[in-house]
């Protein structure tokens, strides 16, 4: 009997084109877009450098500054000679017409004025209002660093101080990651964050096909027909849970494959799986039970498929927004990070990140698994209570 219950459920899902789109195409698209879009956020360089127009009269100090700015992985600078027209008139054209991200106006004798302790000079940076503040701060510190270097270099030459080591100071500052697991040394990339995030999101979207099937069964009288048959509740419930559990696991495999093989084809980083596969399965099983139980709860509080799709869709989006799916948790302010602790999607995501990014072991994910299973049992219990209540009515 169970074979036919599973067969029925699989046939229904395989013929539901909307469900397939939501379960497989939507997360694939999200993973591709977000992995590529957030690539620079996680990287030490960026693909498209920010353009700088350095407006001044040419001299060797300006040339030096321009050269130093160009050494940065983030900026591409060119000098524009100042003519007699007002700079203000040209600003809009340079930013919106010639697509410069930053315009720096600086007087050519800035070094002389600094050396003489004169304060009547300005270095003005212009940009579009929507430019990221971090980029402005980075540019500002780069200017300060290079001007300071020029001044110090002049001073050392003048006083015959050998400071060659100081010139190489920058290269002496090295970055090293401290890994939780020494066998697991993976640099965090956008794809390491995007795959688990959108995978968890799409797993919770299992509620669309589950609630649609469940509500249609109620509306069409199929549930009444099944209840009039001498069949126990357990195989029917398992017949609902197991196929969707398998579909969730297929989602896990496919989305990991997208991260490993498809994202690099489009220029993104490849997903590196060094974590324990069994732990990934444990985590994805817990997420799956939580998602399916939540779907059964939504199916029981909704009267129509439209209602289930709206309530389920909106709740999923809210849980995703709160859970660090849409915006990575580490960019959130502290109070928002505290709130994420209450979203089951966050438990799922943190558990997967623990395995995929930090090489965590069972001890590191057990709390998330317990939370997800508790959420699943509560949702299932509520769904059952609602079902019994409705039947009594």
């Amino acid at each position, binding site marked *: 009997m169970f074979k036919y*219950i599973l067969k029925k459920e699989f046939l229904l899902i395989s013929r539901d084109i909307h469900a397939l789109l939501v379960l497989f195409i939507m997360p694939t698209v999200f993973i591709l877009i977000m992995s590529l879009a957030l690539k620079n956020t996680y990287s030490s360089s960026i693909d498209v450098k920010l353009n700088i127009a350095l407006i001044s009269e040419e001299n060797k100090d300006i040339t030096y500054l321009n050269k130093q700015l160009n050494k940065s992985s983030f900026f591409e600078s060119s000098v524009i000679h100042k003519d007699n027209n007002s700079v203000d008139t040209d600003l809009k054209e340079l930013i919106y017409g010639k697509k410069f991200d930053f315009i720096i106006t600086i007087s050519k004798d800035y070094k002389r004025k600094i050396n003489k302790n004169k304060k009547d000079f300005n270095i003005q940076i212009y940009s579009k209002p929507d430019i990221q503040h971090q980029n402005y701060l980075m540019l500002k510190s780069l200017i300060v660093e290079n001007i300071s270097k020029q001044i110090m270099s002049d001073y050392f030459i003048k006083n015959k101080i050998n400071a060659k080591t100081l010139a190489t100071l920058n290269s002496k500052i090295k970055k090293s990651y401290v890994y939780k697991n020494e066998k697991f040394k993976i640099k965090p990339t956008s794809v390491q964050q995007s795959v688990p995030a959108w995978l968890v999101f799409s797993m919770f979207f299992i509620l669309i096909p589950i609630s649609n099937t469940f509500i249609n069964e109620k509306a*069409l009288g199929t549930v009444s*027909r099944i209840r009039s048959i001498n069949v126990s509740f357990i195989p029917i419930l398992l017949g609902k849970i197991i196929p969707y559990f398998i579909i969730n696991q297929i989602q896990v495999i496919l989305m990991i494959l997208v991260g490993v093989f498809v994202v690099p084809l489009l220029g993104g980083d490849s997903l590196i799986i060094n974590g324990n596969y069994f732990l990934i399965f444990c985590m994805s099983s817990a997420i799956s039970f939580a998602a399916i139980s939540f779907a059964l709860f939504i199916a029981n509080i909704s009267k129509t498929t439209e209602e289930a799709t709206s309530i389920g869709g909106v709740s999923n989006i809210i849980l995703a927004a709160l859970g660090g799916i849409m915006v990575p948790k580490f960019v959130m302010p502290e109070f928002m990070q505290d709130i994420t602790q209450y979203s089951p999607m966050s438990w799922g995501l943190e558990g997967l990140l623990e395995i995929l990014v930090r090489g965590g072991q069972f001890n590191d994910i057990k709390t998330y698994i317990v939370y997800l299973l508790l959420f699943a049992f509560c949702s299932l219990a509520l769904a059952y209570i609602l079902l019994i209540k409705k039947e009594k009515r």
Partner: protein
Amino acid sequence: MAIKINNLNKSYNNSKVLDNLSLEIKEGSIFGLLGPNGAGKTTLVSILNYLIPKNSGTIKIYGYDFEKDYKTIKSISSYIPQTYAFYPNLTAYENLEFFGALYGLKNAALKKRIQYCITATALEKFTHKRAATYSGGVKRRLNIAIGLLNSPKIIYLDEPTVGIDPQSRKYILNIIKEINQRDNITIVYTSHYMEEIEYICDEIAILDNHTIILQEKKDLLMKQNSFVEIKLADENLSIDVNNGYEELLEVLGQLKTNNRRIVDIDFGNKNLEHLFLSLTKGNLRD
């Protein structure tokens, strides 16, 4: 007796739906259950199929106790709801396979029974097409086919011809008659269509005000309640011909004398409807 109900009571929120209802249905009969909206037909059928619990009363199905022998009763009963209670995205065969498996059939026995149900309801042409593509009539036939899977002794048909064309309706009624005659299956048939009840049922009960107000063999009921409807241009006349045709002849004579034009005369086709409306007072029920 196929069904024996004594003093059945059911209330929802202190409002009575079935009030001391007693009913007996003979084995192998097609039993028509009539009643206005809200009379309690669906509640009665739902109780008999364990979909809702009763408050009190005793029920015996083929001699089995309703509470103690519920497994046996479920295995010999089949409920065919008014709705298309199957999966529209599955084919007829896949639907039959699924429901057949729920009835505990497997392998060769399942295949054999599916074939029987397909033949009995003339679904051969539609076996491997998705149910969503069927016409209303074919969907109704699939609904019935699923109900035959467990080789039931008793079938509850809840308004099985709603929303289909007259040809399909006639076809389905004949299928039901055939099933009843060939396998001696007891059929409990609820409908709003009086002519259907007249056409297929052996015995009729009218349910109103939460209880059975009339139960009689159809033939006897028809004989006792013969009317002739005379339709005039501006009014309808209904003549009781249970005690002979004298009154009818007299009325026809008067109409001729007064030069009244007769538009149509209906001999007996509305008998059951007449009886139903007179017994249920003809009031609109919401």
